[in-house]
């Protein structure tokens, strides 16, 4: 079915045919024809954000909580450049996002026209792929290909730049067809390598699963298969920040998150294991600590759909390129057909060792009666929301790590956080995207005061669409993680790491017609959290907490997994000069 229509109408038609129901955007001169087409239809809901960065983060939140690509529509020049942080964030965390940008007309490209920017040039290194469409006849197929590339293989952001004259011109629309693209990533793993991994599973005495965001990106089936494999083998499992929820936090083999602020038992298990099974994780520097001391005596298997992740940082003994769900299915099939063997007795001993590490209780902190400790605030938030249909977003910093430590995620896609890029200002707009995708759910953004201010303009969006997002701000009047590093590394010289002139968050909420709650007394905390949950509308919760709390445990920069700092330990000289250059 081919039809003649304008480029602008084609954009809207292609989005409809791709099953898009929500677009996050901000109009401007170079996308007006597309906005005109949005105006005359009711199938696609357009959410007007207050800044283009917010549009991309909202689309990321939508994508991560639904598994469907998020869609962004912004104008040329500043519209596109404002989106760059969000696009880079999506690239680092492998989130499928389709960004459509307006561009000055083709005959003005290169003339430094008003609101012209070399959008495909600027976004080339921060997209999975991008296109400048110069011919209306190629527009529809390009948008369909953009959706294919964004979602196939390792997901990521893509961008389609559409000059204004291409939007006005008439061309032939083609509907989506099974992709003829040469880009068809390999999803099945090599059976020989998989069999080698099964043999390693059968003989391992101290195994550990180390899982990441790739399990969640692979879809719900991957999480199910992971649970089956973990529970059938009885092997302990830890996860990166991005992978939390793929295996339930309430599961019997769960160790908690690993890495720089991961749990002691998780990091010790990684260090002392004899078989590490990395699934959809990429050995990020937050995870590995010092590379030459990383899990020195283990055989390492690595399952990843992106061949470039394998052997990038850590040498892999059993590399398996493929989609997590496909590979897990084959592992289970082969392992079962060979008699479901494990060294059960040895694995039990291994669990006993892990239990001893667990007894250290690495998350212990000193609670206080007069001041709310941030850890306590999150424990109460967890206790009071755990049973609900709940989605958590976070900003970036101490609160993010505490949320990962003190909140439990039993399902994939329930934690939205900026892992790779570490984007302060991610959480609030992401929570808007999540709430739009799940209107009945309880959506909470766990924030710090400094991060939250970075995209606070999105209060306008939350208010306009009456989105009951809960902004739970752990307010320590500090850039807490920066302050912590300055304490550990820079002789407690707190250079510019405190928040002067913070707004009155209650009044700020009220200025947007939302509800503001202030709580600074541990005794009032439960009631205040309940009040926040019960309120049907956006809430800013100003949770005034201890100002100098540090996030522990911690692997100091340049140290190994078994050299963690625990909360009570002295931090003096913990990081040597070699580690100080690391971030």
């Amino acid at each position: 079915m081919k039809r003649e229509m304008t480029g602008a109408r084609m954009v809207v038609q292609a989005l409809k045919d791709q099953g898009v129901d929500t677009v996050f955007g901000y109009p401007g001169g170079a996308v007006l024809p597309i906005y005109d087409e949005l105006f005359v239809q009711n199938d696609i809901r357009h959410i007007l954000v207050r800044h283009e960065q917010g549009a991309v983060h909202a689309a990321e939140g939508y994508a991560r909580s639904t598994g469907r690509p998020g869609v962004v529509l912004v104008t040329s020049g500043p519209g596109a450049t404002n989106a760059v942080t969000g696009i880079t964030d999506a690239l680092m965390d492998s989130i499928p996002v389709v960004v459509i940008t307006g561009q000055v007309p083709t005959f003005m490209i290169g003339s430094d026209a008003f609101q012209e920017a070399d959008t495909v040039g600027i976004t080339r290194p921060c997209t999975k792929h991008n296109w400048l469409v110069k011919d209306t006849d190629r527009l529809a197929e390009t948008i369909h290909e953009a959706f294919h590339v964004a979602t196939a293989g390792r997901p990521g952001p893509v961008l389609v730049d559409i000059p204004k004259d291409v939007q006005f011109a008439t061309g032939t629309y083609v509907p989506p067809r099974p992709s003829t693209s040469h880009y068809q990533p390999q999803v099945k793993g090599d059976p020989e390598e998989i069999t080698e991994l099964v043999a390693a599973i059968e003989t391992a005495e101290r195994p550990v699963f180390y899982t990441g965001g790739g399990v969640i990106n692979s879809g719900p089936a991957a999480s199910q298969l992971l649970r089956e494999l973990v529970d059938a083998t009885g092997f302990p499992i830890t996860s990166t920040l991005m992978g939390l929820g793929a295996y339930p936090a309430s599961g019997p083999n769960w160790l908690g998150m690993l890495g720089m602020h991961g749990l002691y038992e998780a990091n010790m298990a990684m260090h002392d294991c004899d078989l590490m099974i990395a699934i959809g994780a990429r050995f990020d520097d937050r995870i590995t600590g010092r590379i030459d001391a990383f899990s020195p005596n283990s055989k390492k298997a690595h399952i990843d759909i992106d061949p470039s992740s394998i052997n990038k940082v850590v040498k892999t003994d059993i590399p398996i390129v493929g989609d997590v769900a496909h590979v897990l299915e084959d592992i289970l099939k082969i392992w079962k057909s060979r008699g479901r063997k494990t060294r059960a007795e040895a694995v039990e001993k291994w669990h006993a060792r892990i239990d001893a590490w667990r007894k250290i209780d690495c998350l212990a902190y000193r609670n206080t009666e007069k001041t709310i400790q941030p850890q306590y605030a999150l424990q109460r938030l967890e206790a009071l929301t755990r049973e609900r249909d709940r989605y958590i977003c976070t900003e970036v910093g101490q609160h993010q790590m505490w949320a990962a430590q003190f909140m439990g995620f039993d399902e994939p896609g329930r934690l939205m956080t900026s892992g790779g890029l570490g984007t302060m200002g991610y959480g609030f707009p992401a929570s808007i995207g999540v709430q739009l995708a799940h209107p009945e759910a309880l959506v909470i953004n766990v924030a710090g005061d400094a991060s939250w201010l970075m995209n606070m303009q999105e209060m306008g969006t939350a208010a306009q669409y009456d989105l009951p997002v809960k902004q739970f701000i752990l307010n320590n009047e500090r850039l807490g993680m920066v302050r912590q590093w300055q304490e550990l590394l820079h002789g407690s010289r707190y250079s510019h790491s405190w928040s002067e002139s913070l707004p009155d968050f209650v009044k700020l909420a009220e200025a947007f017609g939302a509800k503001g709650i202030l709580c600074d007394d541990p005794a009032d905390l439960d009631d205040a959290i309940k009040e926040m949950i019960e309120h049907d509308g956006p809430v800013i919760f100003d949770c005034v907490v201890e100002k100098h709390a540090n996030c522990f445990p911690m692997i100091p920069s340049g140290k190994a997994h078994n050299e963690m700092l625990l909360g009570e330990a002295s931090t003096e000289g913990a990081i040597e000069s070699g580690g100080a250059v690391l971030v």
Partner: protein
Amino acid sequence: MSALHIKKGSTRHSAYNLRPTFSDVEERHTIAVLVENEPGVLARVIGLFSGRGYNIESLTVAEVDHTGHLSRITIVTTGTPQVIEQIKAQLGRIIPVHEVHDLTVEGPSVERELAMLKVVSTGEKRVEALRLADIFRANVVDSTLSSFIFEITGAPEKIDAFADLMRPLGLAEIARTGVAALLRGE
């Protein structure tokens, strides 16, 4: 896919241990990349090398299949085996890249480069330059009473050697195409 008879496969296997990957020894590899000839594709390849800090010793590019719009990029690079494997894997991630071949691993291969050298001299030096050019099978493509332009084709080392000889004989300017390479045999 194309009529170029290039064997598929190196992209798929780039993650596997073809040889010890975590050695400190720097190697020189010639990599052939078959790409869709679309706008910006060269920028993607070059941006990958600069963005991730890889070396480019030589880079050549031209469309080799006009009907299929495929270009062949030949890159000579250096790095530890781990870096070389990363380069190939990262090239394979670029969407318009169809095939990545490490000619050094898949080899043996033939490498050729074309260069033009302008030599300005008179008298004995001029005669010597012409005599050496004959030994190196370089052609004279332009001549005045006081200058020659030689055209020479060969492995990069041969061109280096010729240029070294021409330097004392009045070498004024040199233009090199960079390396083009093909696997030997079928």
